[in-house]
Structure formats: structure tokens, C-alpha cells
């Protein structure tokens, strides 16, 4: 599992790539990936093109991010989920909290 980040050219969007299984072992790396950045970031994108699996602790981590990004006012988008990941997000009704792009 590895987590990498990317800033957009204008600096306003942070894209977090999660590779492999997104589970409790990722929590430190995930938190680290967004907490260090400066306040000019207004949009967050979670790229799951290489994420094979998501468990309940990962759901928790996503919620933490959302919280950090402004809660109700946050702009966090989740992209490129595979079938299994999508299923878990849907079951957990995360569409109500995040913008999920297929």
C-alpha cells in the first residue's frame, strides 16, 4: 500500500493516490498526506484507480479528511473506484457525503 500526492498547477487542488489496500495500516500515511499542506488547498481528490480494497477503518479516515477539509463545506471528490470499492462506499451511503465520480 502506498500513498502519493499531487498538487494542481494553480495550487488549489490536492490529489491523493492510494495504491493497494486502504485499511487501518494506511492511517498515518493518509493523515500525513493532507495535514501538512498549507491552507491554499480548496479541493481534494481521492484517486482510487489503484485502490483494490477499502475497509471500515478507511471509511473512518475518509470522514476525518472531510472533517479537516471543512465538513459540510468541504469539496472532496472520490474518483476511479473499482467495483468492490464502489460497493462499500455505496452501502455506507458515502454519496451523501462525498462527490463520487465513476
Amino acid at each position, binding site marked *: 500500500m502506498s500513498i502519493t500526492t499531487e498538487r494542481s498547477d494553480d495550487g488549489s487542488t490536492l490529489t491523493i*493516490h492510494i*495504491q493497494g489496500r486502504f*485499511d*487501518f495500516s494506511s*492511517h*498515518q500515511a493518509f*493523515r500525513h498526506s493532507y495535514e501538512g499542506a498549507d491552507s491554499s488547498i480548496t479541493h481534494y481528490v481521492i484517486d482510487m*484507480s*489503484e485502490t*483494490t*480494497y477499502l*475497509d*471500515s*477503518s478507511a*471509511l*473512518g*479516515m475518509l*470522514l*476525518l479528511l472531510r*472533517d*479537516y477539509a471543512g465538513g459540510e463545506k468541504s469539496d472532496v471528490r472520490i474518483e*476511479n*473506484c*473499482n*467495483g*468492490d470499492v*464502489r*460497493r*462499500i462506499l*455505496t*452501502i*455506507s451511503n458515502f454519496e451523501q457525503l462525498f462527490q463520487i465520480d*465513476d
Partner: protein
Amino acid sequence: MTIDAAFGSGSLRILIADDNQSDRMILHAILTRQGHEVVMATDGMEAVEAFHRENPQMVLLDAMMPRMDGLEAARQIKAAAGEQLVPIIFLTSLSDPESLASCLEVGGDDFLSKPYNRVILRAKINAFRRMRELHQSLQKERDLSHRRNEQMLHEQEMARRVFDNIAHRGCLGAENIRYEASPMSIFNGDVLFASPKPSGGMHLFVSDFTGHGLPAAIGAVPLAEIFYGMTAKGFAISDILRETNRKLQAILPPGVFCCAAMVDLNLKSGHAEVWNGGLPNGYLLRHDGSTDELRSRHLPLGILPADRFSAACERHSMEVGEHLLLCSDGVMESVNGEGEMFGEERILEVIAGGGAPSDVFERLREAVRSFSEGVGSEDDITILDVAMADESLLEAVEPEVLPDTGAGPLDWEMSYELRNETLARFNPVPLLLHICMDVPGLRLFSGELYTIITELFNNALEHGVLRLPSSLKDSPAGFSRYYSERERLLGEITQGAVSIRLEHRSDAQRRGGRLLITVEDSGDGFSEEALSQSLAHNGLSGRGLALVRQFCNNVRLCGKGNCIEAEFVWHTGRSESRSGVFEGGRQP
């Protein structure tokens, strides 16, 4: 036929044909004194008969004889000799250059003028003997080479059969797939796989090993096992790519690698996920005539170690009737009579040539064929053309995945217990999932089962054994602390156990079954109240068991509260999960 073995080196069996008795006697004397065996004939017809009967290695023929003259006799003898080199020397009393030259023109290999000179005759015989020997050794080499070639072709045929046996589980014959895989390309290690997925859609794989011939083709065997095995068990494209890379990296010699492209075609959502490592550009052909390039963005398989390998795919949406085209580099490298390569420009020309996306495959195939027509046997071409199709295609394809749900282990149970320090070091979930995947009917639900087993195991380990309070996870700081505590406690663990019991029974018709998953821990247990509280919880914790509840028919507490039993029921004909959630929806 030949009698070389009967004679030592040097002596030959020589046929003499001359209608003059005294001339014959002279020749006979000269030749026998030189150690040769002599066969006599008095005219052309006798000469031909004697040749058939005695198989001489050399013939001395008088050019003009009654009944059949020397020229006709020479022609018949040459014909009878076939592949063997039997020199014919014309005996002649002519002396003018033109006549002598004409002896050679009409088929003789040399001439001997009268009076017969034994020194000259000896020299000529020696010269021809050397020529014969050279001729024979060339023939031997040719025959050997021929045999070796036959053997190689036979081996390749065997390899091909092994390959076909492995690949036969696939769906290359599906309606939305067309392909070209020439025998030469397969022997050179090109690989073309297609397999339906348990959850719907299909995986496709095209690859091209470096190197040629049998060694390259052998690489296809582990590739096939991994591709078909993992696809059938519901693994995702990235898992399959990673495993393939790992395996090839381990077994291939340095310098040998596998240029490949893999596609996960999702018919339900209308998407294709594409991974290209080292194959030439693939093309996505759209209805409006535009083309998306599917570039190689990764290193070929078998090069990078696992921690540097990337299985990131490009995602493309595709409408029904749009096509995806992949080729091995044999297409671009086909040459014509002038030695020019087909090249990417010509591929693009074919694509731009108008018509529907469904026409391109045939046109490309035809273009390559006529381009390299008549130029040797370099026919080393692999082309795959896949169309995005409607979901209903799956119904036709699915039976191949589950040819017999009655097969596999249907009625079994097993227990697995992890104790003490092992709890910190080993995650049993992948192994347990693998066991479940041996049940063909469960392969459609690998995702759900993974979630169920993982969440139950983590719950047992964290709350049961380590006694971490789930309420900690209610705040961001607490969440963090929860997991660092988890790590600390696991590192210090000396006592504790989690056991997982799996029990599977199939229904009477063998078209469905029930998997019972029971996870017990060595802790004090929970009350029913605590359980329902966490199940109903909307906070950051409790999601795990909520997920389990969603996927299972029934979840209940047993034992003294330190044991949870979850029941998962499945049956064929339904590829969606129990709770009715689909893999994304097709965008309108």
C-alpha cells in the same frame, strides 16, 4: 542404393559403354589396374539396364552407339541417379573444340578423347571422386538440418497444444471479440487471453515476450495460469498485474521481459480500464470517428520489483459499438518487398480510412497481409479487437465461468486459530478467502466475503483481544490514538487468540449454498446491547459490523458474547450482491 560402403576409399564401381570390343578391353584393363570395379555394356540400352542393376558411381559412355546413342543413355542415367551425383564421361574420337564442348552441353560432365590415356583418365576419376564426396557431405548436412527442423516444428506444435489447453477456458470466441494470432506469432511468444469475470465483464490480455521460439513461448504457461485462475476467482486487474509481474520477475532470465497490455472491460458501467506496459499504442475507436490512443505508460512486466511496480490503469468510457484495438509490434514491423516497415503511420491511415469502428479490424488485417505479401514467412502478427457490448452478452458468456456449480468443494468446514504473537504478524484473511474461492459459486462474491471476514477478524482482534474501546474512534485525535494503540498493543502481545470457523453447505439442487462464518476471540465478550449499539452507530466506529450486516442474511452473537456468527447465502443467476447494490450504474 549406393555401394560406397563396399569399397574402400579410392576404388569405385565404373560402368563402361562402348560398342567397340577392343576399346572396351583397353578401358577395362586401365580401370582394373587402377583398382576399380568395371561393369560393361555394349550399347546405350544395355548401359541403362546395367546402371539400374549395378548402381555404378561413375559412367564412361561412348557418344555414338547403335540402338540408343550415348546422349539418350546419359539422359536416362541422370534421371535414374536422381539426387545422387553420378558423373558421366563421354568417350569420343572427336577432337575439334566445338564437338567436345557439345558433349558437355548435352549433359555429360566431361569427355575423354581417344586414344585413351590412362594418366588423364586417372586424374579425371580422382577429380570426380572428390566432387562426389563433397556432394555427399552436403547432402548429409542438408538432411540433418532438415531433420532438426522437423523436430523443432514438432516441438512447437506440442507447445502450441499445451498453450491451447491452457487458453481454452477463455472467451476469445465471444461475440464482441475478434482477433488475429498467426502461428508464427504464437511460437514467438505472443499471447492473447480473454476471460469472463465472475462479477460481469471480461479481462483481456495481449503480450509479446522478448526473444523468439520455444523459450519465449514457455513464458506463456505461468501467465495463463495466473490470468485465468485469478480472473475466475474474482481478482481485480491490478492484483492480477501485480502477481504476473512478480512471477515473471522471479522466473525470467535477465533481459527477458514481457511487453503487455491488459484490459478490464466492464459491460455494466460501460468502461474499459487499460494498462499498457511496452506494447505499441492501442486505439480506442469511437463512433464519431475520433480515436483515443492507449499509450504504453509502464515498463513491461517482469522488470520492476514489487515495490516499484505500478498497476495504475487508464479509465475510458465506451459506448456500445465502440472498439478497442491492441496489436503486438509484429504488425508495425511487417516488411514489404522493398524492406519497408508497415509502421504506425500505416496503422493510423487504416484507422482514418473512414467507416465504422467495427470495420477497422478487417481493414487492418487485410492491409498488413497485402503489404507483406510474398515476402517470406515473417508472419508474426497479433491483433485484438474488442467491442463494448451490452450487458446481455454476459449471459451467453457466464456459463463458461461456472461450467458446473456442482463442482468444487461444496460441503465442508474448517477452523483456523491464530494465537499470541502470531496475531501480530500474520493476516489470515487472504488465505481464508482463497479457500472460499474454491467454491465456484462463491467467486461472484469475493469482494463481499473479503469485507465480511476482514471486519469480523478485526473486530475480534481489536475489541475482543486487545480490548480497544471503539468509542475512541469518535474523534479525529482519538481515531489516530486508536490505531497507534493498536500497533503498540499488538507489538506487546503475549496472550490471546482469534479463531475463525468456516462452514459451507450447498442446497439440494447445488445451485446455491450457505457459508457460515464464525469468529471467536479470547476476550470477555460483549453484551447484545453493546453489539446493537455499535451496529446502529453512525459515528466513525461501528461501520465494520454495519457492513457485515449489510452483506449477510443474519448476524448474531453467540457464546459468552465473544463470538459472532454471520451467515452468507448465495445462489447462481444473480451476480449482484445480496443487498441489491450494483457496481456503479451506466451513465445515461
